[in-house]
């Protein structure tokens, strides 16, 4: 059986953090400079009592509106902001959404590459007859792990969730994948404490990273320059591999959507790979980097605003924490 993306929705928490508010917390930060450089004006943040599963629930309700939810026969939840160590958030969500009980459901732990992997899993489940209609959810609340005095990460990340329905179809609209993993970079984007190796430490020391950001080992740590180096290295290669696997070229691709890390990084990659500006998505003004949610948010924006139209071949590329990356081509 072949597969296609039926529809996508997303949900952002109500609370907003603007660049002006950041400027008040960090007087040396310049609101306009942030927007110009990284393309972010504001980001949405969860409240203390709001979780990724809450966002996932809201996004799912939106996508299931006007859709027979009894058709859903697999639920995938991509998140790194889990409700509990166990059980899987996907199981809780199956019940909250009132989905059938004779369906499969599980979580998987990926960040910025997560949507691409979700499409790969969905496609292969449909192809093998395990499922017909998959509900793929990505949900991220990195901001819960960011230290209040961490200027760089507070600027970059926002919270959000997306829900996408992938259906079996007569025509294949999710083409071949190229995936990649390099665990050597695992320490460059990490929350060191709070798992079972290093327990959450209430006395964890505050460390100034020398560029005006303070955090402890309980918080999200990102080595920005190293992550940038990784993307410069991995993204051009995975795009070439994906194009080759699909026997196509960049010229034959109608539109390109990268994981929206920040404006500067994706614009640099665009120029390096020589993707024409009019075929390239670069927009995170009101969301910031929402990790596994950026690609489906972008996709919905492109469809809703007719930036892409039926029949267009769209290249999707995700890359980040792990390191983990992947690319595929979809037909709208």
């Amino acid at each position, binding site marked *: 059986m072949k597969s296609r993306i039926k529809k996508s929705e997303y949900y952002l928490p109500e609370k907003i953090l603007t660049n002006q508010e950041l400027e008040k917390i960090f007087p*040396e930060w310049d609101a306009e400079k942030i927007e110009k*450089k*990284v393309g972010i004006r504001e980001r949405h943040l969860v409240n203390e009592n709001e979780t990724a599963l809450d966002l996932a629930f809201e996004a799912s309700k939106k996508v299931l509106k006007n859709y027979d939810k009894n058709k859903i026969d697999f639920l995938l939840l991509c998140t790194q902001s889990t409700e509990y160590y166990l059980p899987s958030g996907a199981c809780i969500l199956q019940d909250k959404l009132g989905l059938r009980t004779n369906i499969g459901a599980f979580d998987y732990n990926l960040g910025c590459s997560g949507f691409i992997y979700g499409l790969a899993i969905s496609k292969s489940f449909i192809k093998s007859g395990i499922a017909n209609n998959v509900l793929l959810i990505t949900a991220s609340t990195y901001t819960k792990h960011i230290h209040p005095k961490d*200027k*760089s990460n507070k600027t970059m990340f926002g919270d959000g969730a997306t829900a996408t329905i992938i259906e079996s179809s007569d025509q294949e609209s999710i083409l071949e994948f190229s995936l990649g993993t390099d665990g050597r970079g695992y320490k*460059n984007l990490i929350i060191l404490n709070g798992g079972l190796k290093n327990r959450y430490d209430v006395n964890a020391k505050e460390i100034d990273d*020398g*560029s*005006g*950001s303070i955090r402890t080992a309980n918080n999200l740590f990102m*080595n*920005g*320059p*190293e992550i*940038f*180096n990784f993307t*410069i*290295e991995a993204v051009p290669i995975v795009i070439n591999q994906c194009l080759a696997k699909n026997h196509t070229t960049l010229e034959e691709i109608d539109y390109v959507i990268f994981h929206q890390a920040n404006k*500067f*990084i994706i614009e*640099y990659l665009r120029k*390096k790979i020589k993707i024409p500006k009019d075929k390239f998505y670069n927009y995170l003004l009101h969301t910031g980097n929402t990790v596994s949610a950026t690609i489906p948010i972008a996709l919905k924006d492109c469809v809703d605003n007719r930036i892409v139209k039926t029949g267009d071949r769209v290249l999707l590329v995700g890359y980040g924490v792990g390191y983990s990356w992947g690319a595929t081509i979809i037909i709208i």
Partner: protein
Amino acid sequence: MKTNKFLCELSETLELEEIELNVNTNLKDLEEYDSLSVLSIIAMIDEQLGKRLSGNDFNSITTIKSLMELIGMDSFE
């Protein structure tokens, strides 16, 4: 690359308007130098010189000369 050209590129990268750079300028003393500048410098060096600097390298950088030494003096005339 000529050292002067590198100084111009760097000045453009850091969006400096009034400050004149020389090899002894300490990058960390510049008001414009922040975590985003590091990404810009990495991009400029990748683009202009085809070299990749690691994130940790930047911790030890002080003057522009120390940046040039890290890139490798063979890249400069």
